[in-house]
């Protein structure tokens, strides 16, 4: 209390947007990541490794979606389009151009940026729910486009097979080497999620996103350049999601148009619904809960989707803000 008093006296407003609490929160974050890294080494079961690798990849997708939908309040439903372009782009660069996978994943970030702009330009001319319609239409239009892309080596329905293994400075990481993949996907996922929640969303961009979401007219009146920041939201969201797509492609060794299927899309929606939007770490916890829950429910087989549905309904009723609602406001 007294320390905040001294701060106001020289007009320094304490806020996460001016770096308040960043060091402590970052320490906690990286401690959790270190614990996860350690846990990876202690886990002997490669199937469990596999589940966590999927969790780490999903975390990047959902954090990116949370950035644009939860924080910036833009109804973008083309998230898996970004993922698909990242996966195909990275796969094709390494298959046809012989680009080493690590560089191909980096290039996927660039591809993501371009696709982000391409989806953003028409979206920025639309209002609210029409953005949802347009972006979802892009999602629906992509599988037939991939079919047509067979001519340029996109593999059509069967997709792309035999995507080269990750080469970590001379060390070939096969898809069977789950422990290494666990660490690789954890490292990439942790960096992406950190950049999203601790760098972008706690900086000026994050403040602009929240301002446009909370009160768009007021935001414009205090000088927020709407076009620029909404464009940045699309680009940032697409860049990270495309990286996740690239990692996924090289991990599974296969990409097919099925990444745009209903199951993937529903899973992503369920993760956000259960985790809650716009409040770190809600969405990320949603990923852990849904992916792990989905695996635990595998023995129920036919009822699995039903149970997931029930979980969503219960969350919406009892925790309308998702798991994130259990946390007090940030700050």
């Amino acid at each position: 209390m007294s320390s905040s008093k001294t701060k106001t006296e020289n007009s320094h407003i304490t806020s996460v947007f001016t770096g308040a609490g960043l060091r402590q929160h970052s320490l906690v974050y990286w401690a959790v990541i270190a614990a996860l890294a350690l846990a990876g080494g202690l886990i002997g079961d490669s199937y469990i490794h596999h589940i966590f690798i999927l969790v780490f990849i999903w975390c990047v997708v959902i954090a990116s979606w949370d950035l644009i939908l939860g924080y910036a309040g833009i109804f973008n439903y083309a998230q898996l389009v970004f993922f698909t372009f990242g996966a195909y782009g990275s796969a094709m660069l390494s298959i046809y151009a012989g680009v080493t996978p690590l560089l191909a994943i980096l290039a996927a970030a660039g591809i993501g940026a371009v696709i982000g702009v391409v989806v953003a330009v028409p979206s920025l001319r639309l209002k609210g729910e029409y953005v949802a319609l347009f972006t979802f239409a892009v999602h629906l239009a992509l599988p037939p486009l991939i079919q047509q892309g067979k001519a340029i080596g996109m593999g059509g329905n069967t997709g792309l097979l035999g995507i080269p293994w990750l080469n970590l400075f001379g060390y070939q990481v096969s898809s069977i080497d789950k422990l290494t993949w666990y660490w690789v996907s954890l490292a990439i996922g942790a960096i992406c999620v950190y950049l999203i929640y601790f760098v972008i969303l706690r900086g000026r961009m994050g403040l602009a996103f929240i301002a446009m979401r909370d009160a768009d007219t007021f935001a414009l009146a205090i000088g927020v350049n709407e076009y620029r920041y909404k464009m940045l939201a699309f680009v940032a969201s697409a860049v990270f999601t495309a990286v996740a797509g690239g990692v996924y492609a090289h991990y599974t060794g296969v990409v097919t148009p099925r990444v745009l299927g209903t199951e993937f899309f529903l899973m992503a929606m369920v993760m956000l619904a259960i985790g809650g939007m716009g409040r770190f770490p809600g969405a990320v916890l949603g990923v852990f809960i849904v992916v792990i829950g989905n695996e635990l429910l595998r023995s129920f087989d036919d009822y699995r989707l039903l149970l997931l549905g029930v979980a969503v309904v219960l969350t919406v009723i009892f925790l309308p803000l998702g798991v994130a609602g259990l946390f007090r406001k940030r700050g």
Partner: protein
Amino acid sequence: MTQMSLENVTMQFGSFRALTDMSFHIDRGEILGVAGPNGAGKSTLMNVCTGGLRASSGQVSFNGRDVTRFKRHARCGLGIAQTFQIPTLLSSLTVGENLLAGQIFGTEVRGEATGISMDEILFLTQLEDSLQMDAAQADLLTRKRIMLGAALATGPEIIFMDEPLGGLNAEEIVEFLQVIRHVREELGITIVMVEHKTRALAEIADRVLIINFGEFVMLDTPQVVLNDEHVVEIYLGKKHDA
């Protein structure tokens, strides 16, 4: 000493004309009251000045520069601020962060420091004890203070205030009028405010603009305007009807 001027400004919504051929000047440092019956086009006029709307025809100039086609954030960068009838704030953030947002984006869009310190803003708005409070928790008067504070934080030369006294009780009106007066006295900022209550206008405004059906009726000192027969008829007459 003209700071802003409108020349033959018309605002058309489809076939409906909300403003017709409006021309007048705003002097630097004055408090200009804007009055007129409901639906007269007062809010539309404010928005045409601040960039919320782009005039269908005519010209809006600020410091001699044609800003008719400038967007809202760009006009903010030139020093034109606005507060709204209904204070919708950055409700998931703290009071302090709302002010900070004004300073950060005002600085960004200006490309230089805003020239009004946070100290002065806190002194004027008296928000220093509520900085850590959630903005969503603030009462109406506090919300109005926050909105004004954020607008000031962008470093404006002129502020357009749409019904700043709306919803306040008599005591709060006195209090907020004092804040508005201070903004002009201490910071030299021009104020254009829409207000129904003629008594408040007479008290604070240097000049009063009356519009009716989107048309200019008159612009003069409060004494002249509020004693004008025609104005009394369209303005107070309406009030008696209601």
